[in-house]
């Protein structure tokens, strides 16, 4: 069993244009183990993506206080690639396009990066695994030979993130708005992919602001994030309650002093 712990995490970012430093996360606490699916819900601009990018190690986000522990060890000093090799995976909201590098080539490089030099994956087992997962995700057979995300539609990119998840088999997956821009069929396919990973050796943190995705991937724990903190943690029913009452309702119920970005 692996564990991922976020302790009193404070994170700043510098605005690219004005240069102003802004604190986005203001003391996030979160603890999860493999075998569990957690969901983080929250309104726009509340720091959900900041949390996932900071856990992954995107250099634009500066940790000013607190810690992130993987199996009890701090990962704050590790570069992105090392965090990945230790079991973290971030399905991105806006994956980069890399022309000239095929999906298949990229996937093999990613798998082999986790294996010792003298034990690289064989072409046969790679292709077998790839075919199985393409089939599961209802993806076109031509996909592996296409350049990585280049010219992919929004839905294709999301599926491709899930394909990578299935091929790489991380201990923890952070899924950042994996449902945005998906029609219901694509959403079901993505959910099927994530559900196929469920088990004792896999945990997921699903970031979403709609409850819709959680109809298909049932979470064990739901966290509500507002104003840079987790303000409420509960079971799957918390998501349903949110769907009914909205974030403003929750805020008022708890008497939270938080501005909601979309509120007028």
């Amino acid at each position, binding site marked *: 069993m692996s564990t991922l712990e976020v302790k009193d995490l404070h994170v700043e970012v510098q605005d690219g244009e004005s240069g102003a430093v802004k604190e986005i996360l203001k003391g996030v606490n979160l603890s999860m183990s493999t075998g569990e699916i957690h969901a983080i819900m929250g309104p726009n601009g509340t720091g959900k993506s900041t949390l996932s990018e900071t856990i*992954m*190690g*995107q*250099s634009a986000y500066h940790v000013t206080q607190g810690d992130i522990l993987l199996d009890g060890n701090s990962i704050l000093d590790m*570069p*992105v*690639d090392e965090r*990945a*090799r230790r079991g973290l*995976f*971030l399905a*991105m909201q806006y*994956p*980069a*396009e*890399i*022309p*000239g*590098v095929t999906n298949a*080539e*990229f996937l093999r*490089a*990613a798998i082999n*990066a*986790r294996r010792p030099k003298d034990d690289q994956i064989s072409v046969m087992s790679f292709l077998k695994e790839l075919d199985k997962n393409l089939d599961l995700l209802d993806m076109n057979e031509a996909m592996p030979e296409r*350049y*990585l995300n280049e010219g992919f539609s929004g839905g294709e990119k999301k599926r491709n993130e899930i394909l*990578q998840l299935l091929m*790489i088999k991380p201990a923890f997956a952070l899924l950042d708005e994996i449902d945005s821009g998906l029609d219901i069929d694509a959403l079901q396919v993505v959910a099927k992919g994530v559900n196929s990973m469920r088990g004792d050796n896999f945990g997921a943190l699903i970031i979403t602001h709609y409850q819709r995705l959680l109809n298909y991937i049932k979470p064990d724990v739901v966290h509500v994030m507002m104003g840079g903190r987790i303000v409420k943690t509960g079971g799957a029913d918390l998501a349903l309650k949110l769907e009914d009452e909205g974030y403003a309702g929750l805020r008022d119920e708890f008497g939270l002093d938080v501005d909601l970005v979309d509120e007028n």
Partner: protein
Amino acid sequence: MSQETMPLVADTVTKHDEPAWMIDKRRAAMDQMPTLKMPRVQRFDYRYWQMMPSTEIHWQSSSASLAQSDLDTTTAKADDQQISIVQVGQTTTQVKLPAELGQQGVLVMDLFDAMREYPELVKPHLMTNVIKTNETKLTSYHMAMLTSGIFVYVPRGVAVNQPIEAHIIQDSTKTDHPLISHVLIVAEAGSEFAFTQHLSTVGEAANIANCFVEIDAAEDSRVRFSSLDAFGPKTVTYFERRGLAANHANIDWAVGLLNDGNTIGNIDTNLLGEGAETDSKMIAITDGTARMGINNGVTNRGKHSVGNILQRGVLLGRSQLVFNGIGDIIHGASGAKAEQENRLLMMSNEARGNANPILLIDENDVLAGHAASVGQVDQQQLYYLMSRGIDRQQAQRLVIRGFLGVVLSAIPAKTVRQELITTIERKLTDEN
């Protein structure tokens, strides 16, 4: 260049048993040299480079064994359909041409043998139509001092299915041994073939390479030229690669410039004929302290002629790379099209790069466009790759591969493409 050296040149070439017209051509070139200027590469200064080290010709033979390591690593298993020619220094060490092609009149041979055996084919084409000896000091130097060469002739209507492969190996096991080489390619009407050259250096001596390619493409012919340039770090290179395309002729260039040393060069296609086309693709990688200045041009003269230039360069270390894309549309070339795209990727803060589109358009009824950029590795791309566990070095290599991919994937010969990828990977690995 003093006049006193003239008799010496004449004397040394007489001993080489060259036809009188060739000696006259050398002499004329030598005479006009003092009046000519050095070739110009915009935004690139090479005035302190020694490009004309000697005005004496030394005929020396090189051993075929020097070619071995090169051939072992680059040529696929020989088969009886293979067409190839290997030259080490001034010596042609191997020629393979299937008998049936010989019977059809195809020639692949040493240029000096061709001057003696087929003067009627060589004389009208050698530095007359495509490159002229009196263009610059270096074109006349080339003519005067020429000491090695390849002649390729494909008769009217003949299509050659296998690529014609040339290995040109600079012999720098000797000092004072410049490589002055000329590849003359004559494509008669309706012929079709591919020519691939591999340039490399053996030995450690500092020598120049002065290498010309002329492609004279008659109407309706189609010539696909590819080159992998990989001269050594102590070689200072000057190249001219020029094509002349008659009506509906087509000349395609795919060039991988991976020289370790200083290089200037000029690629240009003169689209003389109506509907003539060229597609010029180039990749360059510079590293260490190497400096490279390249002109890649197309001249549209013929109506409805089409020229495309696509270039990608990667700069490592403290190197310098200048790409000039030169599109010249001559008055009267109505319906012509000229497109170019020049992009540089800077992998180091200490490297210097320029991508300059230069368009000279003297005709209204044309379609012309250009794009140029100089940029750094995309951090988003690196982050994405690394977030999947790929380390920084490999992620960078993949991003570079991606950057070059649009040109790489357009290179028709699979073996050249693979060889290019291997050489690029080696250069990038060495750098890290």
